[in-house]
């Protein structure tokens, strides 16, 4: 930029960060580097790349120039030092925990999480010996009480899926700092447009890019952002970062890569060895989506608030859970952490119970009945008859997916059309 020291604003970064004109062709849109591999300049260059002595591309499982644009862009938007894009939000969580935990270690996670993450932590991660200890975000001291010498990380969602509830990041971050472990925030529902967790103490931010960042329901992807804030060498608790790595002839990643060592560890150990690479085509679609993130996200929030307002006085609706609503339990936290709006996802309790839920998802004409959030299109799901079907009623209610609950992800269509569709669906 002409004024080199001017700090660009969020909307400018959403469009430009990571995406200089292509060095080879001058292409202004980011080219899709649909290649598995890259020719080495010479034998010495190959050796430098494999030894991590040079920056560059080897093989698309480890890095790809199209994916790199996405990585740098989200890192810039979150205010982090580096990013690593991977095949899905779930893959991002696997790589983060694999870099931090050894079998037998523990991590503390908020009970209020996306159901898929609860499953991943309770079952897949336990089978790796990474033991989740659940804490209650409505009782911050439960995080402190859960800390043991085996604790290696604390994990929360900024806005939790599905109830649109807001997590009090700052005090939980303080507990992580006191325990000497990194604070990981899944910022999928808020996106950096609404909340930058690094400003509130996050050391690592993860996303499902599938949702609002990509924004169009066309690609699965995930990303890990390194805040560059954690001192990996201080307590010698994280051997992937602070000990010589046999995989790389004894390199110590933290001393070599400083404040972006975590992102490098996830790439050159996690992604290289576990393999969930993002397709460059998906990276292209997602980074194109991000260019309009500020516009879309504001519209999502404005529409969602109007819908929540409408539903909260609807005769067939018992309750609405959405932190953006003035009377909501989480409204105070919403004003602090997501002042521009509380995102697009909410849950709604129907007076008619299970049958009313089934009827609503069948009767809507604009909303799509499917398992996803964060599309331009309005989406609806009745967890009790779909994702949470196998649970008992009691288990369903505990998971916030009681028989009367529907989850909405409000799109960016005309809000009058969204409201009219719900109204006719509820009354039909």
């Amino acid at each position: 930029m002409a004024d080199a020291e001017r700090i660009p604003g969020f909307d400018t970064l959403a469009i430009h960060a990571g995406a200089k004109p292509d060095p080879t062709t001058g292409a202004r849109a980011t080219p899709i580097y649909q290649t598995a591999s890259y020719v080495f300049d010479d034998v010495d260059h190959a050796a430098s790349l494999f030894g991590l002595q040079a920056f560059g591309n080897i093989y698309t499982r480890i890095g790809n120039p199209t994916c790199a644009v996405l990585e740098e862009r989200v890192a810039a938007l979150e205010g982090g030092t580096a990013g690593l894009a991977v095949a899905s939000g779930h893959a991002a969580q696997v790589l983060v925990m694999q870099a931090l935990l050894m079998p037998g270690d523990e991590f503390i996670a908020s009970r209020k999480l996306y159901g898929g993450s609860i499953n991943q932590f309770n079952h897949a991660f336990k089978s790796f010996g990474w033991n989740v200890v659940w804490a209650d975000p409505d009782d911050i001291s439960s995080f402190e009480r859960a800390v043991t010498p085996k604790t290696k990380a604390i994990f929360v969602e900024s806005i939790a899926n599905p109830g649109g509830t807001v997590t009090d990041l700052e005090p939980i971050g303080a507990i992580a700092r006191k325990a000497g472990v990194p604070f990981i925030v899944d910022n999928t529902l808020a996106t950096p447009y609404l909340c930058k967790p690094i400003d509130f103490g996050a050391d690592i931010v993860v996303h499902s890019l599938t949702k609002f960042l990509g924004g169009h329901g066309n690609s699965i992807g995930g990303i890990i952002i390194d805040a560059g804030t954690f001192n990996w060498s201080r307590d010698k608790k994280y051997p992937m970062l602070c000990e010589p790595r046999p995989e790389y002839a004894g390199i110590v990643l933290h001393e070599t890569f400083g404040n972006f060592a975590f992102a490098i560890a996830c790439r050159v150990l996690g992604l290289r060895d576990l393999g969930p690479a993002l397709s460059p085509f998906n990276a292209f679609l997602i980074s194109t989506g991000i260019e309009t993130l500020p516009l879309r996200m504001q519209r999502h929030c404005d529409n969602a608030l109007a819908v929540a307002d409408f539903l909260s006085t609807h005769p067939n609706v018992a309750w609405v859970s959405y932190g953006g609503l003035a009377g909501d339990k989480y409204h105070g936290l919403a004003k602090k952490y997501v002042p521009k709006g509380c995102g697009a996802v909410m849950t709604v309790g129907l007076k008619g119970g299970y049958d009313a839920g089934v009827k609503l998802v069948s009767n809507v004409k604009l909303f799509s009945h499917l398992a996803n959030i964060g599309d331009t299109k309005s989406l609806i799901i009745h967890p009790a008859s779909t994702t949470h079907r196998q649970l008992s009623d009691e288990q369903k209610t505990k998971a916030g997916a009681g028989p009367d609950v529907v989850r909405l992800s409000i799109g960016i269509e005309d809000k009058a059309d969204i409201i009219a569709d719900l109204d006719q669906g509820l009354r039909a």
Partner: protein
Amino acid sequence: MNHDSYPDTYIRGILNTVKTVAMVGFSPNTTRPSYFVFKYLLERGFKVIPINPGQAGKEFLGQTCYAALNDVPEPIDMVDIFRASEHVMPIVEDALKLQPKPQVIWTQLTVRNDEAAAVAEAAGLKVVMNRCPKIEYGRLSSEISWMGINSRTLSNKRAQNLGGGFQRMGLGEAGGKKND
């Protein structure tokens, strides 16, 4: 100079000007950060002279290692210090005795000595502390962006290929314009 945050123009100016770098605290161990930087800067066209009393007289990647700065038989533009912060002052004092004087004192990540910096600056030298020239070069040339690192730079010009390979970028921009 404010040593908490350097303008990109300052760093770019230094990396665009200096040609000969003496690396104090060079390690011959190929997995140590100093060796990474040594090799990388050589590949980017700098002349890099390793300084390490235990390795004096040996050659690394074709470069003769010397025991101390004042053993180096040619002018040094920049002294890059890979020693703990408390060892920086005597190295700066040695550097200031050189004829001609170097233009720049650079200390690596985590290495910072404000007293030594003040002495060097009073003698007219530029100082960069707690930074890595490999990372800064990679950041300003856009090479580091391939690793998903936040380069904290935006540009409407394409990065310039340095030649000698596909994945070697320079500090200017295509078309020959320097960015400062």
